[in-house]
């Protein structure tokens, strides 16, 4: 008698979707950052040894290994230190391509973070461009980065390369 399972050959691939939901405990320093976002403000922390300002702060300075206890309110504007234009689709992507993924150094901060840049064609973005955060409506503010809709050019002249080159 023919063995039907053999005749059909091996099963080569089986898709098994995985879903992960997890809880995140932000801790003291990140809670301050998140509460700031809830008010439409960027809050960071300064290291008492090197004086560098981290945003968001993880509660300690990675260089000096000391707790960062001094809270700093940062401005709404910053400088694009570098960027790329994302034009590749992938599973779970939440933003329409192409989009500009920029490293943004907020005024008064010493560490850039990744931000979405809009209201500018993707071929006109430049290193050194001055940008500002655009927030969601006040009633929609939450303790989450979803409170920042995106960044956009604020019309100021580009920052000089020398002012941000140490942040690359």
């Amino acid at each position, binding site marked *: 008698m023919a063995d039907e399972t053999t005749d059909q050959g091996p099963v080569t691939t089986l898709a098994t979707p995985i879903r992960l939901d997890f809880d995140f405990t932000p801790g003291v320093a990140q809670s301050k950052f998140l509460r700031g976002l809830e008010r439409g403000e960027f809050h960071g922390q300064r290291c008492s040894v090197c004086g560098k300002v981290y945003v968001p702060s993880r509660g300690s300075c990675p*260089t000096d290994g000391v707790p960062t206890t001094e809270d700093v309110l940062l401005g709404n504007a910053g400088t694009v230190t570098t960027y790329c234009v994302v034009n590749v689709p992938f599973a779970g*992507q*939440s933003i329409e391509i192409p989009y500009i993924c920029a490293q943004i150094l907020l005024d008064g901060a010493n560490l850039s973070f990744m931000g979405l840049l809009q209201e500018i064609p993707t071929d006109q973005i430049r290193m050194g461009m001055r940008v500002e955060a655009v927030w969601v409506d006040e009633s929609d503010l939450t303790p989450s980065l979803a409170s920042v809709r995106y960044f956009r050019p604020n019309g100021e002249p580009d920052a000089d390369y020398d002012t941000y*080159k140490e942040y690359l």
Partner: protein
Amino acid sequence: MAERCAVIGVGQTHHKAKRDDVSIAGLVREAAKMALADADLTWSDIDAVVIGKAPDMFEGNMMPEIYLAPALGAVGKPMFRVHTAGSVGGSTALVAAHLVSSGIHKRVLTVAYEKQSDSDAMWALSVPQPFAAPLLAGAGGYFAPHIRAYMRRSGAPDYIGRMVAVKDRKNAMRNPYAHLHLADIDMKMVEDSMMLWDPLRYLEACPSSDGAAAMVLAAEDAVSGNYPPAWVHGMAMRSEPTMFAGRDQINPQAGRDCSADVYRQAGVTNPREQFDCAEVYVPFSWYEPMWLENLGFCDLGDGWKLTESGATAFDGDIPWNASGGVLSSNPIGASGMLRFLEVAMQVRGQAGEHQVDGAKLALGQAYGGGSQFFSMWVVGSAKP
């Protein structure tokens, strides 16, 4: 190093987009059996097994070492799993070498793999995090801004990346195990390929590969095999935080420290002069000039000039990635080990068509994460 350690067997799979003829166990076994045969040994000769791969989330297979222990003959023996992101293949080899150089084991089998066709690495590398905007688009999205920053800092012309993309694919034509065999590759083909993460084009990025690499490492009194051993002259690993104020993302401190350490152990003071070749983790074309500078093969800002001069080409004075490198085969977890393995093949004289004539001393390098993990070794045909 207390005891001398040598590579006495190497094995690798034919790297492909999809190896649906084998399971993960079949894939790693293929490379391991080849390494054992090269060392003229059998499973029972092995004292311990060290395995590495990139994040488990890639294939959705938690702690695969548990299921792979019997496939790798590790039952009843010590087995270690290593993980340091993309550099893992290198650091896995180093953990295995430490077990030999420390005098604990005589013969250690080390294996690394990735089965990217089973996985969705882009998704796994782009999982939304509560403290960052959901912008990350895989490894390319992370590294492209740093590449742009390198171009600005060094003043490199934009065709340098394309030159690397062509050079490594041409080298791959000499390597039967390479995933990509693009016979017609040229500057125009790279330029015409799709812009994925501006300034990075499709053909300036590594492929997604299924593949595995394996090596047998042995103490001096346990050397065997079909080719002369490749002696380990130095090994080092370094890490640094992903983010800190003043971090140089283009030329990371951890990479500079790691190479300084491994060069000191191997007595290397002029890498370009003393090494006959190097296999360096270049997943995106521009990382060749960036790592040329980071590894001290030239002065800061001059990496692109070295690439442009042809020095790193197969017929140059310091061939980089004669195998075709990560740009031609990228089974992520194995990619770092392939760098280490390929330089061992070079100094053993077993690299076939991509053999660098008379290679005696060579550098293998791997990096991972956001350029925050580095692992390196120096191997030579002479005893250290």
